[in-house]
């Protein structure tokens, strides 16, 4: 809407402005409180403690690993949903979206019933090879992947849908196989969406708590990610919990800035 048109419909009414301002306040106030309680002088010491460094390293590694899995499995799924019509298409999309709305702790329980020692797949795995999945770093990666894969798939599917399928047609007339078309045309054109999906999914992984603590437990060095550390520290050393929280806040803001560059601008355009 142009400025002139905006002026023509009149001034924004107070009964809309006040709740809008309240909403902003409500969202910002806790963050301000967090920053105000941050023990800035002790921050360097708090953040370089072995516990924090372990959790930070584990969080970065598992979130990144989850995104590698998401890219490897999620990109083909996103392509399939965006480009191929098959029976049950709508149903598959619905299934993919379920983890988005599922309470994370339920996701953790579901993962346990699937891959736990008594789980559907976990039991035969343990009996045949002695392999245990729950309460390992691998379990953390699985939990992260389970909750972040839908974010990735939906983001990439949207990006693929937004690229003109006529380019695929042109490539086909030039003799390119469907795989070549995907590799050299479809995927490169959707790359901003792939990037946005990776960042979004990575951020979701980084903050993952419920599924992780249920399925992987809270063991320092192997399954204790940053959010789990915050939860634990809050009970024994609240100052340290605030310090770790601040790091996560900064990481989130950095992610937002990255996305703004590549994603929000694109949507706004």
């Amino acid at each position: 809407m142009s400025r002139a048109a905006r002026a023509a419909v009149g001034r924004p009414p107070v009964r809309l402005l006040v709740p809008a301002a309240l909403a902003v306040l409500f969202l910002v106030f806790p963050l301000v409180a967090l920053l105000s309680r941050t023990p800035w002088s002790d921050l360097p010491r708090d953040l370089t403690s072995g516990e924090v460094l372990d959790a930070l390293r584990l969080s970065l590694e598992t979130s990144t690993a989850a995104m590698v899995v998401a890219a490897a499995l999620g990109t083909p799924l996103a392509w399939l949903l965006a480009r191929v019509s098959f029976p049950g298409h709508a149903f598959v999309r619905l299934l993919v979206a379920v983890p988005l709305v599922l309470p994370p702790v339920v996701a953790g329980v579901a993962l346990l019933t699937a891959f736990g020692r008594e789980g559907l797949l976990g039991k035969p795995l343990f009996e045949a090879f002695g392999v245990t999945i729950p309460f390992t770093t691998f379990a953390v990666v699985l939990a992260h992947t389970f909750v972040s894969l839908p974010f990735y798939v939906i983001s990439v599917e949207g990006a693929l849908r937004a690229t003109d399928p006529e380019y695929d047609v042109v490539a086909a007339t030039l003799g390119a196989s469907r795989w070549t078309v995907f590799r050299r045309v479809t995927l490169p054109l959707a790359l901003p969406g792939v990037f946005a999906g990776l960042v979004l999914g990575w951020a979701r992984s980084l903050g993952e708590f419920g599924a992780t603590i249920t399925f992987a437990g809270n063991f320092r060095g192997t399954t204790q990610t940053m959010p789990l550390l915050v939860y634990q520290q809050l009970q024994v050393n609240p100052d340290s919990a605030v310090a770790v929280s601040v790091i996560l806040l900064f990481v989130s803001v950095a992610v937002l800035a990255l996305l703004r560059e590549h994603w929000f601008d694109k949507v706004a355009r």
Partner: protein
Amino acid sequence: MSYLEADVVVRRAAHTLDVHLDAAPGDVVAVIGPNGAGKSTLLRALAGLLPLDDGRVVCAERAWDGPGTRPATTQQRNVGMVFQEQLLFPHLDALANVAFGPRSRGAGRRAAEGTARTWLARLGVDDLAARKPRQLSGGQAQRVAIARALATEPSLLLLDEPLAALDVGVAMALRLELTEHLAGYPGATVLVTHDALDAMTLANRVVVLDDGRVAQTGTPQEVAQRPRTDHVARLVGLNVLRGTSSGTDVRLTDGSALVSVTAREGAVNACFPPAAVTLTLAEPSGSARNRWPGTVTSVAPHGAAVRVHLDAAGGLIADVTPESAAQLGLSPGRRVWAAVKATEVTIYGAGPEGSQEAAAQIPSRP
């Protein structure tokens, strides 16, 4: 059997396309029709992008589709396609766009880029090889798109309104260039257009579509001068005069003279719309440099205008307003002067006499 032999039947809820096409190597067949006549559907069916509901496509002695054959995929059909809106891959530079086809068909990177450079040079855009599509003008992008389509050495070239999205001046220049490239292209070309001028200048055969069916086929001259239905006349009503050009002067086959603004040597066609012809009773003294005396052979209503046929300059069509027709007392046998401004005349090469004759013998399908 011809080089290209196609019976394309595609049924849609709104309309049915049922078209026969055939072409010899080197032929350029223009499929002309209004928007929505099924022209693009026809091209897509030939390219294998749309399944045929009935019919067959045979090209270069290979059955692409038909009863008892599994339809060849688009990749298996050796087609080159040029689209109205170019559709250059936006993430690849011009060179990579043109090299895409050869690489997809198995050439190594270096060989494909060599082929691409050759084709960019032939289209006169080799200096733009490193540019991304968004850095190209419409005309430049369409040249790259043509190079891309030809670089795979297709047996069938499909042009979908290749000039429609361009500025008039750019389209004019590219039309002339395209004539030359098509003359050097060994396969068959199917050109889809709604512009009679494209059909007249680029093609040696014209197929006029009406509501998904062929209304008339023939050489551009035949169709333009003897349109069989009103529909065809509306679409391709153009004066096409044959002659020999020397500079901007053209000696027409009936012996009369014509002047254009395009310098050209040798056999040419001179082309101008019926509305560009003005009729007077006395010899005109205005700025129009082309003026011929003649006798009216027929007068018939044509949309909001009146279409007049004369025997001037070997046969002319003129569109005049009903008021002028009444004022001039136009009726068969009336002696009049016809005048055309030199700037209204499009000149293009007439091509070899033989191919025109051969094409003229192919029976047209009503």
